[in-house]
């Protein structure tokens, strides 16, 4: 029988893709992994969480993105690395599998869900790879230790650091796919860069993929694209408003469950998360379809807060926001919390500070206390030079963090509420709306 690790499909399969045109699959292992239930579940998880409530095209899923990352890594290996002495071709399959499966552990509305239940999607990706799952069954057919190898790449503990860097570094296949894909589906004009050029000039080195000096301008463009996408799309204040409400729904349902509240629609899928007894099966069973079904039915719950928050999320009645400077205004926040309570509006659910922060590129130089592996340029003489030392554009934004704080609140409750009108007016004037 042919070795499963090198078994090829009788004919190459292709997936039509709006970003990469085609995604090519020749390996039987990859084809089998795509067909597993855990991978198919990714169709039911939005790539950009609540962003579809702002950019209506952003309905794409983690499934699309995962195939895209796989395709980029396949092209790096087959077109740029193959045959070069620093690349070990026996790492090809483990790298492709890790690329395809790197997001397997994302939960529904990933970040909000992780925040409320204190979870880590990367750990769940590893648990799915190693647990009693269809994915594990496929990987185990390659060899007994193969699932562990793929999990180690995802966990960044794989001995070959070059392999890890293709999936997770400051210029990796994950970012290259999501920037372009998210730009395409949101319809924004940022996020585009010359990936073809980057792939052509990418070279393997001992610890990471490096970029030939001649590709520096393409990398500058990539970094600026990332910078713009974060502030124009990923940190959009309206999409953060939806995420704030989502977090509060899950927190409210958890509190009600702990208090013994009798739900009309019992949260059976969440029970084990509320009391922290969940297992892998419970985790895999959740997706965004299930969450949305609960949210729709919870609109009819007797608990006014849960009902209101679900109605806001499902029908896009989002919170209003103002800029907030925690350094100068933290006392004002305390005052507002008191006034909200007096007005009968629970500030725990209806007055929320949300912060977003991004560091577009950071560098590490030996001896410094920073934590990121930089992008290296391969100079003509074979020397490696850190990118910001060569590029004025990258140097200008290196290590510079940009942070944005917003204070979210339900303006309609303050303007339309009939009781305690004076108090509500006072709150509105403090909020300066």
């Amino acid at each position: 029988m042919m070795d499963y690790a090198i078994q090829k499909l009788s004919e190459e399969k292709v997936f039509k893709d709006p970003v990469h045109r085609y995604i090519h699959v020749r390996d039987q292992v990859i084809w089998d992994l795509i067909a597993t239930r855990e991978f198919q579940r990714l169709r039911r998880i939005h790539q950009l969480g609540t962003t579809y409530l702002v950019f209506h095209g952003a309905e794409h899923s983690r499934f699309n993105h995962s195939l895209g990352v796989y395709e980029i890594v396949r092209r790096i290996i087959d077109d740029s690395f193959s045959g070069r002495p620093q690349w070990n071709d026996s790492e090809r399959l483990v790298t492709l599998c890790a690329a395809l499966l790197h997001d397997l552990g994302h939960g529904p509305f990933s970040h909000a869900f992780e925040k409320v239940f204190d979870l880590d999607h990367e750990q769940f990706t590893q648990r799915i790879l190693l647990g009693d799952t269809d994915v594990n069954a496929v990987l185990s057919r390659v060899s007994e230790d193969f699932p562990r190898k793929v999990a180690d790449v995802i966990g960044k503990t794989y001995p070959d650091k070059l392999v890890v860097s293709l999936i997770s570094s400051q210029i990796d296949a994950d970012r290259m796919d999501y920037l372009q894909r998210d730009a395409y589906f949101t319809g924004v004009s940022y996020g585009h860069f010359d990936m073809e050029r980057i792939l052509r000039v990418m070279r393997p080195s001992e610890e990471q993929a490096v970029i030939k000096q001649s590709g520096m301008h393409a990398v500058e463009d990539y970094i600026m694209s990332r910078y713009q996408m974060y502030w124009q799309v990923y940190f959009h204040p309206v999409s953060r408003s939806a995420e704030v409400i989502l977090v509060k729904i899950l927190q409210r349902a958890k509190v009600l469950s702990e208090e013994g509240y009798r739900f009309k629609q019992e949260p059976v899928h969440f029970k084990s998360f509320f009391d922290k007894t969940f297992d892998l099966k419970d985790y895999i069973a959740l997706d965004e379809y299930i969450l949305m079904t609960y949210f729709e039915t919870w609109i009819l719950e007797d608990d006014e807060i849960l009902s209101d928050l679900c109605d806001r999320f499902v029908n896009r009645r989002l919170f209003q926001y103002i800029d907030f400077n925690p350094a100068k205004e933290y006392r004002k926040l305390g005052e507002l919390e008191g006034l909200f309570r007096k007005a009968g509006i629970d500030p725990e659910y209806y007055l929320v500070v949300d912060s977003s922060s991004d560091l577009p590129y950071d560098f590490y130089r030996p001896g410094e206390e920073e934590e990121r592996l930089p992008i290296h340029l391969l100079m003509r003489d074979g020397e490696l030079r850190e990118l910001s030392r060569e590029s004025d554009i990258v140097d200008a934004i290196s290590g510079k963090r940009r942070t944005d704080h917003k204070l979210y609140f339900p303006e309609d409750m303050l303007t339309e509420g009939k009781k305690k009108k004076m108090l509500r007016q006072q709150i509105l004037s403090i909020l300066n709306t």
Partner: protein
Amino acid sequence: MLQEHAKVVQFISLADGVTGRKKLQKMVYIAKKMNFPFQEKYQLHFYGPYSEELTLRIEELCEMGFLAENSEDKGSYVQYSYSVTGEGRDFIGDAEEVPDKLGECIGRMKERSSRFLELVSTLLYFDHLPREEQIAKVHIVKNKLNFTDAEMDEAFSFIGELAGCIRQ
């Protein structure tokens, strides 16, 4: 009200200041692994477990004037130290009570070098694995630091001491 910010200020106050960004990162991680209620998410980075959220929170606290950051040029690198300001002490005046034993744990960690805390935190990152596998993982991800068997033993015994101090 900004409870997570307050916890970080309390932490640095209990330590009577912390020298080194890396050291502070590792101390908070180890405290979190000892079940003290810190919410910052950690991932494995260059120097072991690292939290972008904690970095951000510290920057915000410095901006707010609750923490003071001092930098010292050490020749080949810059070392940062953090202390609580007078405004910071006012800020934590109304915060939730400090968990029992946190101060003692912080005191024990502060006495140790950042290299040692890097080892302890990385071992704890893999604490779901058997001891031998934990050690093997550390040797893979920290292959350039060449931790010795004696250092490994000492790190495990330190983890035991911290856990014992909390149980008392």
